[in-house]
Structures are given as C-alpha cells and as structure tokens.
C-alpha cells in the first residue's frame, strides 16, 4: 500500500514486494461543450498482488471513469490527460495499440457494469468466449476450446450447456457470471470489476460476489471493485478508497475505514447506510457534488462539509498518511488524531 503521489515500486518483476498495479497521478478529462470536466483528478493508489481494493463514490465521483481508464477504454469525449498506470512495471498508457490489446484480458481484465448489455446479443456465448481466447492464443484447437469453455463455466457455477445459448436466454445473474468467466479465462493478474452487481437482486448479488471472491482467490489476482454500495464493498474488500468529485479523498484498510474514518465525507457515507438493528431517520448528505467543469477553489467537499474551515475553501488538501497504509486528503490532519464529531450544518453553502 503506497502513499499517493509517490510510487513505491522500482522493480519490474512480479512476485516481489512491488505492487502489481500502480496508478500514479491519473487524470481523465471530458471535453464538454462547457469546457473540460476533470472526471479523474490526480488519483494515485497501488495494489499488491491478490489485494482487494474497493472504490466507493457517489454517481459522478469519477469511479467508473477511472475503471475504464485503467485499461485505456476511455471513450470520446473523454481522454486520459496525464499520469501513469503501471501494470507489473509496464505503463499501460504508453503501450502501442497492439501491445495494449495483448495485455487486455491476459494481464488485466474487466468485469463491466451492466453485464445485462456486456454480451453481444446476436452471438452465442460460446463464440464470445472463443474469440477472446483465440485473440490471445490463436493456436488453440477446437477440442481444447471446448474443454476450456466447459471448465470456465463450471468454475463460475454455470452449466457448460449454457455456452450454446444466446445472451437473452440467460438470467441476469447467469449473464454476470458468464462475463466473469470470460474475464478470468486467461488468469489475469488484475481484475477491474465495475459495479458488477448493479441491477441484480440481493440474493443473486451475494452469489455473484461469492463467485468473484472465489475466482480471485483461486487466481491470486488483485481486484479493483468499483461501486456505490458501502455495505457490499466493506464485506468484500481488504482496502477501501473513497472518491469525491474526481479525487481520491481517503484510502485505507477496511477495518480502519469503517471503524474510524478520517475524512468527513467517508463518515457521512457510512452514517447514511440504514442499519438493521438501529431504527433511526435516514440521513443523507445535504447538497450536491460540484460540477466537474467548474470545481471550487480549495477542497471540493468544502461546500458540504460540516467541519469546513477557512483554509478548506482556499487550499486544496493533499494526501497525507495518518496511519500505516491509511491516507486522507483533508486539512483536519495532522492536527487531529481522529475525526472530530460531526454536526450537520443547518444550511449548505453553495
């Protein structure tokens, strides 16, 4: 776990203590009619092999944009404006298109948001798995393909006969698992799972997450799990990162993040989760995230923050380590040891 802004790895060989995925100062910008929108703003983090990172944020926090940017799948009008994405030492952002295509799926795989529509509706499932495998291992024979596909499907808990179906003949949970089967078909080192359980009911969500966990553990792959469901992420991840208005505002081990979060936004996020045992009014976070084209000077959360003071509206807080493996971008530190109690402001300043 590295401190943001600096890369710890200097080594190109995996299996050593270097991070398998090292994101440094990533910037992703959308060229909109009203000007550039900084959807991902100087984000840095690193993953060890086998580590599970959960990225949380509201809609528009930039988390999905970041997910697609990791594999250079950003679509116009978005573009990657700066930074490095080091996969096992190789910067994905500077690879040639051919090398990039070879790396995708083989070393880093995507489990996309909305698996409902991630599968080509006019192609049988079998062909969609085959073309993925053949794109990287063109000499695989038909017989080998058959066997591998059967294995892959069984591994995610699907009947191999499903391969001959069309996507519309599968249920939501089955489709999500099929997509995971494809994503893990070449044993990637990193899996980027972008809201894999949205639009699924709770029971199926659990099954899918369990499958994902099993797959990941079996492959020893690192996972970046992107979502907005704090409860789900907390149950799955080793490390949790919180994104707000394109910035990574806090990152730390899950126990510390849930038990004693440092950033006010994280605290409010956790508080907004309804509890099963305690009956109380649903608390939200008053106000709205700032428009990404016109970010306020200073901390982007200041307008909504109950603990904001003058410095917050002027100076952009930088990431700092408050505990081993725990970083936060907030002006409350290092002056405070933990987060002071929050009082929700009566009115929210624009």
């Amino acid at each position, binding site marked *: 776990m590295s401190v943001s802004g600096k890369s710890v790895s200097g080594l190109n060989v995996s299996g050593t203590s270097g991070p398998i995925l090292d994101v440094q100062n990533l910037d992703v910008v959308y060229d909109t009619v009203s000007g550039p929108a900084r959807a991902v703003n100087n984000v840095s983090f690193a993953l060890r092999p086998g580590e599970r990172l959960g990225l949380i944020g509201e809609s528009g926090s930039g988390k999905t944009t970041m997910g*697609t940017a990791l*594999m250079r*799948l950003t*679509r*116009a009008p978005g573009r990657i404006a700066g930074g490095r994405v080091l996969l096992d030492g190789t910067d994905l952002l500077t690879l040639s298109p051919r090398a990039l*295509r*070879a*790396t*995708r*799926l*083989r070393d880093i*795989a*995507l489990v*996309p*948001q*909305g698996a*409902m*529509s*991630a*599968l*080509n*509706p*006019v*192609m049988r499932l079998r062909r969609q798995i085959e*073309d*993925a495998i053949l*794109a*990287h291992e063109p000499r695989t024979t038909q017989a080998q393909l058959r066997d591998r596909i059967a294995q892959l499907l069984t591994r995610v808990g699907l009947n191999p006969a499903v391969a001959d179906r*069309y996507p*519309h003949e599968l249920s939501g949970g089955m489709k999500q698992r099929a*997509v995971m089967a*494809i994503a893990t078909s070449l044993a990637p080192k990193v899996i980027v799972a972008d809201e894999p359980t949205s639009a699924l009911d709770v029971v199926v969500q659990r099954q899918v997450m369990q499958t994902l966990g099993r797959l990941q553990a079996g492959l020893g792959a690192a996972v970046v799990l992107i979502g907005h469901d704090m409860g789900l992420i907390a149950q799955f991840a080793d490390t949790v990162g919180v994104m707000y208005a394109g910035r990574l505002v806090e990152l730390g081990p899950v126990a510390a993040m849930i038990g004693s979060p440092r950033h006010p936004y994280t605290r409010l996020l956790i508080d907004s989760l309804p509890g099963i045992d305690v009956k109380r009014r649903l608390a939200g976070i008053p106000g709205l995230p700032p428009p990404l084209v016109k970010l306020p000077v200073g901390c982007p959360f200041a307008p909504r923050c109950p603990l904001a003071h003058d410095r917050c509206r002027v100076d952009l807080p930088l990431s700092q380590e408050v505990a081993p493996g725990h970083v936060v971008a907030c002006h409350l530190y290092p002056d405070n040891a933990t987060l002071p109690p929050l009082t929700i402001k009566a009115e929210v300043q624009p």
Partner: protein
Amino acid sequence: MSSDLASYLAKRITQLFLVIFIAVSVNFIIPRLLPGDPVATALARLQTSGSGQTMDIQAVSDAYRARYGLDQPLWNQYLNYWADLFRLDLGVSFANFPEKVTVMIANALPWSVGLLATATLLSFFIGSFLGGRLAWPGAGRGIRALVPGLMVLSAIPFYLLAIIMVYIFAVELRWLPPAGGVETTRIMRLDWATAQDILRHAVLPCLSIAIGNIGFWALGMRSQMVSVLGEDYITFAEAKGLSPGRVFFWYGIRNAFLPQITALALNLGAVVSGAVLVEVIFNYPGLGSLLYVAIRGQDYFVIQGVVLVLIVTLAVMLFIVDLIYPLLDPRIRR
C-alpha cells in the same frame, strides 16, 4: 418451430393478406367513386384525343360491358373483380386492344425487377458499409469528407439525378445510350451481344437509382452504428483485447445491420416509387414506363393492373424481408 416464432409468422402473413386486400379494394373503389361510367369516359377521352381512331369503339364498349358487368350492382362487380383476379385476368388494354394486361405486365416485369433489384442491392450494401465505416472512430479524413456529399445526394430525388446523368453521360459524353432497354433495332436473342446491349442500357438507370439511394443508406447505417458503438458490449469486446476489425464487424456492423434492414423494409415503397420515375425518364421498358404510357393514353385497365402488381410485389418483398429478420436476430427466433 416455437410458439413465438409461429405467432410472428402468423402475424406477418395476416398483414400480407390484409395489405393485398386493402390494395385491391382501393384499386376497385376509387375509379368507381367518381361520377360517370369509367369505361365510357376513358373511351370517350381516347376518342377525342385521337388515338382511338383505329378501334371500333362500339365493339370494345360492348365487350367490356358484357365482360365486366358494369351495369350490375356494385357488390357484384366487386366479387367479379376478385374472381377475375384469381383467374389472373387483369383486363384488356384499350390502346393495344385486344392485348391482355397480364401479358403486358409479364413482359415488363423482368426489366423492372432486374433493374430495381440490382440497384437496390448495390446501393444498400455499399451504402451500409460506407456508413458503418464512417461511424467507426478513426475514419480517415478523406472518408469523413464524404459526409456532406452524401447528405446532399440523399436529399435530391433520384429521378432528378437521372436527368442529370442522362445529360452528362448520354448526351454530352455519349458514353452510354440515353434511353430504352435495348437498341430499338435489336432482336432479342439469348447471346452475348444481346446481353451486352442490355447491360449498356441498364447502366445509367441502375446508377441513378443506386446513387440516389446510397446516401440514405449510408447515413442511416452511420447513425445506427453510432448507437451501437455506445453499447456496453462494444466496450467489453475491446476489453477482451479483440482486434478493431473483429469488433467493428462482428460486434458493430452485425448489430447495426438489424435496424438497417428494418429501414430497408420501411423505405422500399419510396425506392420503388422513385424507380418508376427513373424508368420513365430512360424510357426503360419496365412497369414504370408501362404505367406512364397507360396514364398518357388513359388506358384504364392497364393502370389498374400495374398499380395492383406494384402493390402486391412490394407487399411480398416486405414479407420476405420479414422472414429474413428472425434469421439475423436470435432474439426474435426463440
């Protein structure tokens, strides 16, 4: 065959028959809605315009009255009309008495079908691929420059294009013949010379129809592709590391093609309409020219017959397209 597929087919077949039924009925009703005896009026007009001089008007008139029972109640006439249709009797031409309408249509049909089929297939497929290529990010500058040109082309009615083409290629440059299906002096034989002649005469009309439509198909396909490209399965296909060519064709075009085929079906009527006019301009011996000559000569039954054939042919073509659709889209197949 599953029940979904069966009900889809049943619905389509019903529509086919419905269209034919409505067309026939409309064809029957309209002339009879107007005051006067249609046959007498037509004959009278022919007489005054001078082309009826060589006919024995009385004989024709009597033959018609007896044959088609124009003095009988409307309902009987209607039933007779249907009976005649089943016997493939579309009446007789006034101007070319006693040539049967069916025969005239049968002679003209192959010319029209050949012309239209070739032109439509060419423009549809070339246009669709062009449109698809245009939508793919990374389309070259040169190709992108085509877009305004295509927009303009798609807006101009293609029978006007035909006029321009006749002028440029047939009159000014004299590369190709300006009119007809074959040289007027040729005797039709099954040999290479005849075939060549036919082809030479077909080039301009075919091109007029094709060029006039290509813009429309290209722009439509481009717009479909743009939607498809926004879909998640394209992103996932790229995430799998597939080559751009594969993604473009098997994930992009393959999906965008479906609504494009629907567009073909919806616009076939307009394509046929335009083709009729092109035939007139080129004096091409198809149904279009037949219709035109019949209109000029007020050859009543020929007009009705051609219109009916046009409508039915189109309905059948649409039905065939409807049959193809499930083959391409598994979601309908079940």
